[in-house]
């Protein structure tokens, strides 16, 4: 019996290091924070986190990272100010424990550049409106709608997202409408989210099949296009109405088939002497 317990203990220990090896600050930062934040490389969807550990109280940071929404709802003025400043985009709650959060903060502190020595990735490196061509937009549209496949077989954006642009098929309504994503999130923000999704549903979809650089550029070009063209003329919902009419028609057809079959169905349970 004792021997068995020892063996089980050894086997479980063998699995433990794997499990905990992931919780180093850097890994968590790139998994969870990098999509919206940089350390010293400028603002994305969220603030640049360089030297954040010296600017803010540690407990406040931990609380904010755990659930910024609860902090805002509790009326914390600092949290509300941050929320207001960054376009009222709520930071998703992060399912990491206190120790992991401390690891991330340690990583940020260690990697924060001295003020005055910031190396920034210029927005032009991510996206430049001047260089966008119609071909880029078309490729982006095809990828978005799923007419062209992503190289790593990720799901097309239209599965969950809608854009209100004439000529684009109605998109899904599970996630945010992306018509004006470009202005809402900035090119760097969209790039960050697509490159390193912070949202669980997107993580599930793209963890094992990320987009390549060219595909991200094409998607950015398409979203740039929708941002400029979208909602100019309110997208008509005639497509939706057509689907509704077809649905009602289909239901009637199905019942018609049942009605035709009704003729050869036994009408009475047992021999009826009426």
């Amino acid at each position, binding site marked *: 019996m004792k021997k068995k317990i020892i063996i089980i203990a050894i086997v479980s220990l063998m699995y433990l290091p794997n499990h905990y090896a992931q919780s180093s600050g850097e890994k968590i930062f790139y998994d969870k924070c990098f999509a919206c934040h940089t350390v010293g490389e400028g603002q994305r969807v969220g603030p640049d986190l360089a030297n954040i550990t010296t600017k803010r109280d540690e407990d406040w940071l931990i609380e904010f990272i755990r659930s910024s929404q609860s902090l805002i709802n509790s009326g914390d003025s600092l949290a509300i100010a941050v929320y207001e400043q960054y376009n009222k985009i709520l930071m*998703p709650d992060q*399912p990491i424990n206190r120790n992991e959060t401390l690891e991330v903060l340690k990583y940020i502190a260690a990697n924060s550049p001295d003020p005055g020595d910031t190396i920034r990735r210029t927005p032009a490196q991510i996206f430049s409106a001047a260089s966008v061509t119609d071909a880029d937009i078309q490729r982006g549209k095809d990828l978005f*709608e*799923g*007419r062209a*496949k992503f190289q790593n*077989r990720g*799901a*097309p954006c*239209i*599965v*969950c997202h809608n854009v209100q642009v004439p000529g684009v*098929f*109605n*998109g*899904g*309504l*599970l996630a945010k409408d992306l018509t004006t994503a470009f202005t809402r999130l900035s090119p760097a923000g969209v790039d960050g989210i697509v490159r390193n999704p912070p*949202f*669980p*549903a997107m*993580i*599930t*979809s793209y963890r094992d099949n990320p987009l390549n650089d060219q595909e991200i550029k094409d998607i950015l070009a398409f979203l740039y296009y929708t941002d400029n063209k979208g909602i100019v003329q309110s997208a008509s919902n005639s497509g939706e109405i057509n*689907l509704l009419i*077809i*649905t009602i028609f*289909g*239901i009637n057809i*199905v*019942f018609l088939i*049942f009605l035709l*079959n*009704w003729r050869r*169905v*036994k*009408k*009475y*349970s*047992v*021999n*009826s*002497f*009426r």
Partner: protein
Amino acid sequence: MNAFNNIFFIALPYAALLMFLVGTIYRYKATKFKFSTLSSQFLETKKLYWGSVPFHWGILFVFFGHLIAFLFPSYILLWNQVPVRLAILEVSAFIGGVVALIGLAGLFYRRITNDRLRKVTNYMDLILEVLLLVQIFLGLWVAYGFRWGSSWFATVLSPYLTSIFTFNPQIDAVAMLPFVIQLHIILAFVIFMIIPFTRLVHVLVFPLSYLWRPYQKVIWYWDRKKVRNPNTSWDIHRPRNN
């Protein structure tokens, strides 16, 4: 919120699976002859046809749609690649759902209004029918309100269900879904859980073997020619069930 997610998306599925397995075996061993749909066709036939037939065609179509999306998510995405095909799939699934809802509503009405049926109705029948009604309604709501469910099922829910069946539950994505979808998922597990204790057990004993069993020859004991002789008038009551 964490407790909510853990209870309903990790504990509940496993409780449902366990209860389904143990309950089914127990019921089959304990009350073998009640392990059926307990048909009420003898008691009432007409309304049964207009309830049961639409319900079963609709629910089977929708159920196998869910099953295929769960088992072959990549093929669903491949199919949905062309917008027209996506629309065809979504519309036919929606039609299936509506037909099932109409059928089930009819069956529910029939069960609570017919005196003969009330005699053979137990609480579990009513609970099950109400649960199914709510479940189908929620499904239609999800399909309409959060459209292209066939696609995002494949990318969001298939991985979750797979993670449940591989004993490595990943609930991050499910935890972030809108509440209506969560409720649809939770209710699915609840219905799955109570299968052994309801008429739903009939899905487990569907007589598939009828498809390949040998023909049965029916031999009448009485002289059929005598009865069917058109030259003589009927001296017994004429069967009226056809």
